């Protein structure tokens, strides 16, 4: 039977390296991707991932299972570190549309080579979406990344952010509105509904 995160954390506290490795391999990818999407920098994503698990080594006892999942706990640590990194290295985030986009370009080996036109369009879409996400203010960006890219529920995202679910919903709506605006201006999405008003979520 696969051990739960809580069981593994108890073993980690006792110095079980195998348990720590299991937890690391179970969660590192999503933490890395979260940091990558939030920062647009692989270097920051690596630093953040490393820092998150070093914090876990030091403060595994701080995790309270009654307050949420371990992944939520790790996301919370990651978010704090990303924001700190962004504050420190503001120039890292390529907000402008005319940036070269090298740091967020997809790896060539991951792209199917069937149809060059499709690949080009796909790559353009990926680039546009990621640039649009990076252009969001951080209070919307983290909600969008958590709910849309990491597929957390509103409740889980609220636990990570320490905000009410309603705030998460409203920020997600506002974030989507900003993303659409950005993608419209880059021509990736039609402008028929331009000006559609956002409505506050009461979920």
């Amino acid at each position, binding site marked *: 039977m696969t051990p739960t995160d809580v069981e593994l954390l108890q073993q980690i506290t006792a110095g079980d*390296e195998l348990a720590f490795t299991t937890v*690391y391999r179970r969660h590192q990818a999503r933490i*890395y*991707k979260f940091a990558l999407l939030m920062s647009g920098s692989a270097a920051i994503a*690596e630093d953040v991932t490393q820092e998150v*698990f070093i914090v876990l080594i030091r403060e595994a006892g701080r995790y309270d299972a009654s307050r949420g999942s371990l992944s939520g706990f790790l996301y919370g640590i990651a978010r704090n570190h990303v924001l700190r990194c962004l504050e420190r290295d503001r120039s890292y985030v390529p907000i402008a549309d005319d940036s070269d986009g090298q740091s967020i370009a997809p790896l060539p080996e991951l792209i199917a080579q069937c149809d060059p036109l499709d690949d080009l369009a796909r790559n353009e879409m990926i680039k546009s979406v990621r640039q649009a996400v990076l252009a969001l203010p951080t209070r919307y960006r983290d909600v969008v990344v958590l709910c849309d*890219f990491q597929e957390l529920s509103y409740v889980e995202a609220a636990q990570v952010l320490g905000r009410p679910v309603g705030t998460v919903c409203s920020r997600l709506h506002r974030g989507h509105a900003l993303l659409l605006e950005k993608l419209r201006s880059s021509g990736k999405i039609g402008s028929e509904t331009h000006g*559609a008003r956002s409505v506050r979520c009461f979920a």
Partner: protein
Amino acid sequence: MKCRDFELVVLSLAARRPLEGDGARQALAHAEDCRHCDLRLTEERALASGIWTVVRDLAAEEAPPSVENAVLAAFRERHAGASGCIARSLPGWKRQRPRWMLPAAAALILAMISVAAILHHSGHPDRELDTSIARSGASGAQEPEFGQANSQSASKPERSVASIRSGSMTSKDQRYVGPRSTTRRNLTNNPAEATTDFFPLMGGGDLDSLESGEVVRVELPASVLLAAGLAANLDTEGETVRADVVFAQDGLARAIRFLR
């Protein structure tokens, strides 16, 4: 469903998240009737499609192995460090113990010997010496030899030490020729008396290099045993223990041993 209600669920609808009850069916029905909401849903679906494209693109992304190596190294260091603290503490304590405890014990013993010598010298040396001799069973038969020597140097500072020497030891036993020979000679002349080995005192140097010396028997508070790192009964705190102190020819105490 109204447009306002549709707006509340459009993100979930576009992202294909499950909606409560038949919310999805109602929302889709509303979108068919409302062009604005239909376009809104189309736009959100386009955005969701773009997001999924990115998600798929990042599916294989993960932290490089160097990160795993780094955190595992940190884990090992932390837990090795935690256990190392305990492991290192004992040897460290053991290493430190002789560094400060033996000199402290030696200093304490020397101070007591000095005080005892002064008291003997200024008070009733003969009576004290007689008591010491009686307790130890050591003979004072050779006292005249030392008495003569002492009387000659009565005005000198060494006189008090000489008096103690003369009362404590026979002339033969007073000569100290290295720790082994001292033990072998059984200075106390009492076969029932057991002694510890000689402990070098602070500044005593190498006892093996000591060619000759004199041994003086003294009485000390039992607490010096603890100070010297020896087992002692705490109930006998107020009691005294007997010890033999080796004095070199320069008059410095070099070593001590205790009688059991």
